[in-house]
């Protein structure tokens, strides 16, 4: 009985599920497992079933895309206190990027299929989980948009001017 209690504590202490109702938390525990990844191990692979998501407890994960003939491009790094993966909740439940342990990583993983089934049966749990995932997804989208702006490069005005001159 020790392990579920421990997992419950870990869920309670992780910022992503901070303040969750204890009854709903217990439902989550049934789909959770402690995991550890050595440097270079993958937590998710692009194009493969997204059957898990992770509450990161320690270490750093690189979210990256493989570029044939070149080094993989790291799009973002994530670490302690963050949640990794949402493809498990969006059909067809396939991972969009590679997620590689950049350091030793400790995480709590959740079985997506198990959790989806519980969310279908218990709308309160479904709402609670999605209520936490949606802002995170919005935040990640905003961050990705900012990242592609190339904020620190030459000013946009300058780039437009040079383009006009070239034209």
């Amino acid at each position, binding site marked *: 009985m020790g392990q579920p209690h421990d997992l419950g504590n870990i869920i309670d202490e992780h910022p992503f599920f901070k303040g969750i109702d204890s009854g709903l938390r217990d439902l989550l525990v049934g789909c959770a497992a402690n995991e550890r990844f050595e440097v270079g191990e993958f937590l998710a692979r692009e194009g493969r079933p997204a059957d898990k998501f992770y509450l990161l407890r320690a270490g*750093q994960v*690189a979210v990256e895309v493989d570029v044939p003939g070149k080094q993989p*491009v*790291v*799009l*973002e*790094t994530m*670490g302690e*206190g*963050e949640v990794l993966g949402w493809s498990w909740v969006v059909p067809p439940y396939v991972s969009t990027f590679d997620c590689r342990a*950049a350091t030793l990583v400790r995480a709590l993983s959740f079985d997506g299929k198990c959790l989806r089934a519980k969310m279908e049966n218990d709308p309160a749990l479904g709402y609670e989980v999605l209520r936490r995932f949606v802002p995170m997804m919005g*935040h990640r989208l*905003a*961050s990705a948009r*900012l*990242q592609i*702006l*190339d*904020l*620190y*490069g*030459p*000013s946009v005005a*300058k780039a437009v001017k040079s383009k006009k001159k070239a034209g």
Partner: protein
Amino acid sequence: MTAPIPDPMLPRPFRIEKVRRDLSDTFTMELVPAEGGEFTFAAGQFNMLYVFGVGEVPISISGDPGDRSVLVHTTRAVGAVTKALDALKAGEVVGVRGPYGTPWPVEAAFGHDLVFVAGGVGLAPLRPAIYQAMANRERFGRVVVFYGARTPEDILFKRELERWRGRFDMSVHVTVDRATGKWSGNVGVVTNLVAKGGFDPSATMAFVCGPEVMMRYSAAALEKRGVARPSIYMSMERNMKCGCGLCGHCQWGPHFVCKDGPVFRYDRIADLLSIREL
């Protein structure tokens, strides 16, 4: 007999002591008064630097306000004047008017956690405030620096950041938008670092400097963490001519950036930031 009031439009000649290339397009100059004497300024202020025969440009001071013997400017060569500055060598002379503008309120932050959020060359105008804070380290709670750059090769003051990170009394977090080479640090926007916290939002003052878009989103991230708007300051940038509130060239809504800024309290400018026409 009273001393004559210095003409604010008259540049003082400063000799370039040293030039250091920081990045491919960014350099730091150390200047000393050609006629002797000292130079005092407050962290966050700027000077109008005059390249004779080319023009003047406002550049933030990036050196230590505690060191009056040398004036330090870090500049990115992007326009005619800054490119001309970049071409100057040690021993040559430039004109200096200043210091102008409002400073970072470092002393008002005594007793608080102090958070610096910098992006790109925006670290340069913040560096004097970091020096001042570290010279008065015991007067602050946590001191945290969040810094974002385009790539690992674009990290400004890299050695200094490493040195600061090695201290036990300050936290330094660096991220890049695009990882290259053997970079094993954070990848992502600087606002992601702010979101992770590491400071007490209810007792924090935050100084933000970088591209305007980055500052807007950094302020939003700080607010989301619980930092109150009046506790957030940012340094604005606009084209300037006189630098001292006479010409109106840098007017921004009801403010002259040269005189009422460049450092503004966020709650006083938040609405202006969203007006495209300004």
